[in-house]
């Protein structure tokens, strides 16, 4: 079986589990939506310009719900020792890692696809013709977050207090992603030319490459028994 087929199969396995139970997907989505609503109450958007706070609010919702998804992603592997099967299978561990990243990215992208239009309605914004760039910024930053997040989740779900440890480790490490995402998103919303925020896109791409490569090398040590 080719390497990329394994990656696809691992991701497909996770997504299919999600689609069958739906509990996790629905709760994460509702949680993310609640964050938007809480911020909508917390700030008076008749006074504050949405463009100054909106991207930050959106990314708080994405990253917080991303942590829930990541925790869940490895917790289900621990239930009934499913992970044992994966570890015994004659596949490359890094393919398993990349499959997990892919599933998380697709799951978070689905949450984002629902949340962005809802936010546009909730905060009275129009995205206009900038959807392509918005998509690029969302995907690049989501990949970076999922790359480090999957590596850390593999580790933290094996510890005591795993639910707290993952965000405690992940959020400081994902600071460049949070900054790049918020800056790029706000420039795109403001409709500025690409050169204004090109460096943020490149930074996110560099972060993705560095940590995907590092994680492929390190992931084996996260699961070894």
């Amino acid at each position: 079986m080719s390497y990329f087929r394994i990656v696809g199969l691992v991701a497909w396995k996770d997504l299919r589990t999600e689609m069958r139970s739906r509990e996790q997907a629905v709760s994460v989505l509702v949680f993310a939506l609640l964050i938007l609503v809480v911020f909508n109450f917390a700030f008076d958007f008749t006074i504050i310009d949405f463009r100054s706070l909106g991207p930050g609010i959106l990314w708080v919702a994405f990253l917080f719900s991303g942590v829930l998804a990541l925790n869940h992603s490895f917790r289900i592997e621990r239930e009934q020792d499913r992970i044992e099967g994966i570890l015994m299978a004659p596949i490359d561990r890094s393919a398993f890692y990349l499959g997990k990243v892919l599933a998380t990215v697709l799951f978070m992208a689905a949450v984002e696809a629902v949340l962005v239009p809802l936010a546009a309605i909730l905060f009275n914004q129009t995205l206009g013709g900038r959807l392509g760039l918005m998509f690029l910024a969302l995907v690049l930053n989501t990949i970076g977050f999922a790359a480090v997040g999957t590596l850390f989740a593999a580790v933290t779900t094996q510890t005591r207090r795993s639910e707290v440890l993952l965000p405690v480790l992940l959020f400081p490490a994902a600071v460049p992603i949070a900054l790049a995402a918020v800056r790029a998103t706000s420039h795109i919303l403001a409709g500025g030319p690409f050169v204004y925020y090109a460096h943020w896109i490149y930074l996110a791409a560099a972060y993705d490459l560095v940590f995907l490569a590092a994680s492929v090398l390190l992931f084996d040590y996260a699961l070894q028994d």
Partner: protein
Amino acid sequence: MLERALFAVTAGLVPASLYMIFLVAPTEGKMGVVQRIFYFHVPSAFMAFLGVAVCAVASALYLYRKDRRFDIAAHAGAELGVLFCSIVLITGPIWARPVWGVWWTGEVRLTSTLILWLIYVGYLLLRQNADDRDQAARWAAIVGIVGALDMPIIYKSVEWWRGLHPKVLKISGGGGLDPVMERTLLVCTVTMLGLFSCLFLERFRLGRLRDEVERLEADAARREARGSRSPQPAGVAP
């Protein structure tokens, strides 16, 4: 032996640096006496980076060689990194308040130091929450390496983040430093390095001892288990 000698040298250097800081170094013209905290602040920052670097290199070596000594060194490096980083984060605002008029700003060095501190506090928390020693070592090594790789990217991103409001707060370093101040800084850095090394060797020794105790305990438990299974020889009181 090395430890003793290092301790003796450091013990001599500490009063020498204090003498340099408070009696030899001139009072800075604009900032006044408070600027003397610089001689604690800057060497501590160097030591914080040194601790993190030791942690990252030892972590990589541990994963490569699986030698317990590298893990103990990585742990000690992270602990010292957090310790000296805490000193930086405490002395920084004390210095900033009278000089800049604020305790804290979004300046790039401050922010990235805080993030560095958070990452390695997370590293220590992870170690604390692992049940198995070898698992803790492997997981911590992963976080130690990722944290160190992340630092340049974090620094760059925070720098760009603040880039729209150029507010370069030049700390009285670099070319404009008075030669006496420079010498004082050098002595203080050497002193801090001595202190760092003493603490590092102490933590390293302690880690080795802890391993040894664990090994002996495991041995004793094994022997006891074997003893209780075999029947007691007749005539020997239990």
